[in-house]
């Protein structure tokens, strides 16, 4: 059941014309930063992890309006609920599909972004590991916010306001991942978001 749902969500993500938007956005933000802060290589290298993380967070937010709202509008959620399929399962499948759809391309584009903000190879690998640990949390938060704002006008902007404060722990431990123990705390923060995410999204999706 879960695999059928994930497969379906992935098929929809793959067919979406917006598939490459988060990645292009991610690379563009990384490319713009050197222009914004000037060509000081030392400064760039120092702020590079922060830049990449903020870009990743915004990239996770980009498709938030298409994550849940269309399914509420076109009756897909009704069809799933009338089959007695738990909304938690639906939300969990959506989180997995969203993560595969935005985080994997992001990791693939990371070398480009890393070069643009002047990272060395060791720093790049550490950041890749941190992103691998932290992006599931961003996917979970995006799905929760999408479920909360489904059917609201301007839901995307509101979803951003919901996610940004909740993503703080992930950002803090992700950016500071070279400090001892930070990766474990990042993994813990990510785990909490991923564990709570399906239940929070399901509570928002239930109609009464």
């Amino acid at each position, binding site marked *: *059941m879960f695999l*059928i*749902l994930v497969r*379906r969500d992935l*098929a*929809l993500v793959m*067919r*979406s014309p917006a598939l490459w938007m988060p990645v292009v956005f991610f690379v563009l933000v990384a490319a713009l930063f050197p222009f914004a802060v000037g060509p000081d290589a030392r400064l760039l290298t120092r702020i590079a992890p922060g830049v990449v993380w903020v870009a990743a967070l915004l990239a996770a937010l980009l498709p938030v309006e298409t994550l849940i709202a269309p399914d509420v*509008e*076109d*009756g*897909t959620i*009704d*069809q*799933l*609920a*009338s*089959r*007695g*399929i738990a909304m938690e399962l639906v939300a969990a499948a959506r989180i997995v599909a969203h993560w595969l759809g935005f985080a994997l391309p992001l990791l693939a584009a990371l070398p480009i972004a890393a070069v643009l903000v002047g990272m060395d190879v060791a720093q790049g690998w550490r950041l890749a590991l941190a992103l691998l640990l932290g992006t599931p949390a961003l996917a979970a938060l995006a799905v929760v916010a999408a479920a909360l704002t489904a059917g609201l006008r301007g839901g995307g902007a509101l979803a951003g306001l919901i996610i940004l404060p909740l993503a703080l722990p992930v950002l803090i431990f992700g950016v500071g991942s070279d400090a001892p123990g930070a990766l474990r705390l990042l993994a813990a923060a990510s785990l909490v978001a991923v564990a709570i995410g399906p239940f929070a999204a399901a509570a928002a999706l239930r*109609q*009464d």
Partner: protein
Amino acid sequence: MLFDGIGFTLAPGGALQLEGPNGSGKSSLLRILAGLLSPSDGAVSGGGERGFLGHETALKARIALGDELRHWARLDGGETRLAAAMAAMNLTGLAEVPCRHLSSGQRRRAGLARVLASGAPLWLLDEPTAGLDLASSAMLAAAMAAHRAVGGMVVAAVHGDIGLAAPAVLKLG
């Protein structure tokens, strides 16, 4: 409060027509039966799985009709029933067509084919003939009769006759 003091029992092979003016609660009652809404008081029991046809068709614009229906059939464990269900709704020739190109009547038939393929004993149909031409309505009537002949049940919100033989009638509003 939309309605209160409603009660009915449906035997295998039975059919119930919900009638009443717009806004009288026919769709809400169907949604309660489908488990999509909770009544403020009272309960629904038995009936087994539900096949629900609502106003929205739950078809994704970019996906071909056949793939779309196959996804739902896979969720229902009814892939072997799908071909017959699509044939019963005269959709076999449209399997390769992306859902955005379908007319509203064809979408309605697709929703009905999904109910047919689900294998659910209880069909909940919200104005199933809305947007259907005469030939399609006749196909629906035949499908409902065949479903009832093997012990299936139908609850339909209707305006006028939809070709159910000897249905029980519940008037709302």
